[in-house]
């Protein structure tokens, strides 16, 4: 498994979304693994999972009559958010002079998207942020980091943002 050739870099996937927690996770990862080494050993992939419009509207209620009209608006809104997230992530990288970056936006449920991407890129590590929910919130809202820690087939790194309020 020891690869010394430069084009056989290991792949690190960092999951990004709209939250502060994931930008913190990206910054932490860059600070500790990419800026301290003169030649980075990881190839960086930034992955954003865009929720599909139907799942976002479905939260409003199953019998939402005006759903058909709202869908295109919701969809374009989600696309804008995705573009902004990816842009933000690229900026964070370039501020630290990390340029060898692939970005990707995949539509679907974040949990499956992340685990599938691990398979696709044969990633050696997946980095996710964490909202730091307690047990109850986690049971109700679900936790992507939890799902990935259990189901991804590679090493998972969970970066939490230190609590600012006490």
């Amino acid at each position, binding site marked *: *498994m020891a690869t010394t050739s430069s084009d056989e870099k*290991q792949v690190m996937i960092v999951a990004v979304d709209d939250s502060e927690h994931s930008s913190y996770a990206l910054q932490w990862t860059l600070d*500790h693994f990419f800026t301290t080494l003169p030649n980075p050993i990881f190839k960086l992939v930034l992955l954003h999972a865009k929720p599909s419009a139907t799942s976002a509207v479905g939260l409003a209620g199953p019998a939402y009559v005006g759903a058909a009209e709202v869908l295109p608006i919701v969809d374009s809104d989600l696309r804008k958010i995705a573009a902004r997230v990816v842009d933000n992530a690229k900026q964070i990288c370039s501020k630290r002079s990390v340029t060898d970056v692939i970005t990707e936006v995949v539509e679907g449920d974040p949990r499956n998207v992340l685990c599938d991407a691990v398979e696709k890129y044969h990633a050696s590590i997946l980095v996710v942020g964490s909202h730091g929910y307690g*047990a109850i919130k986690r049971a109700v809202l679900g936790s992507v980091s939890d799902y990935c*820690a*259990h189901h991804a*087939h590679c090493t998972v790194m969970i*970066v*939490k943002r230190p609590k600012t309020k006490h």
Partner: protein
Amino acid sequence: MIYPYKLKKIMEEGGGGEERRMKMKAMVAIDESEGSFYALKWALDNFFIDNNNNNEEGSIMVYLVNVQPKFQQHIYPVGVAGAAFYPATAVMESVRKAQEESSAAILSKASKMCKDKLVKAESIILNGDPREMICQAAEQMNVNLLVIGSRGLGTIKRAFLGSVSDYCAHHVKIPIVIVKPPPEDQTKKQH
């Protein structure tokens, strides 16, 4: 408060004014399982690469933690006359000695792995519930990163056997790396 059973020298590196590089202090939890040694090996191969050819001191410090579960024999009073079973002190002594020996063997093997990769390592032995001790130790030693192996249990086994990596992932406040066993070992897929 951790009450370490045996605390091998823990060097507090004075990071007072010298923070020119991000000093990485990582803690790796080790036990006798293959999974945790694989985690250490993985971390050494991929993370703790120290290009300190020109520095006199490396910027990576690894703390190897081994937690021995507390061995407690409960006293069961038996018999009409209330004659009680007392845990024989000889048994407790021999258990304690066996645990010490196993910790020493585990940690010496782990430190050798670190030394081979030219990474500074310190060993810590703790007693108690692995989940809580690892989380407490991580906070008290002020490390940046916790590395822990995972047995790759399915959901049901995890509910019965408990998972240290799961507990730590939820309760520790610092970034945690969960290293899964290599795919060749997963011959039976369990969900």
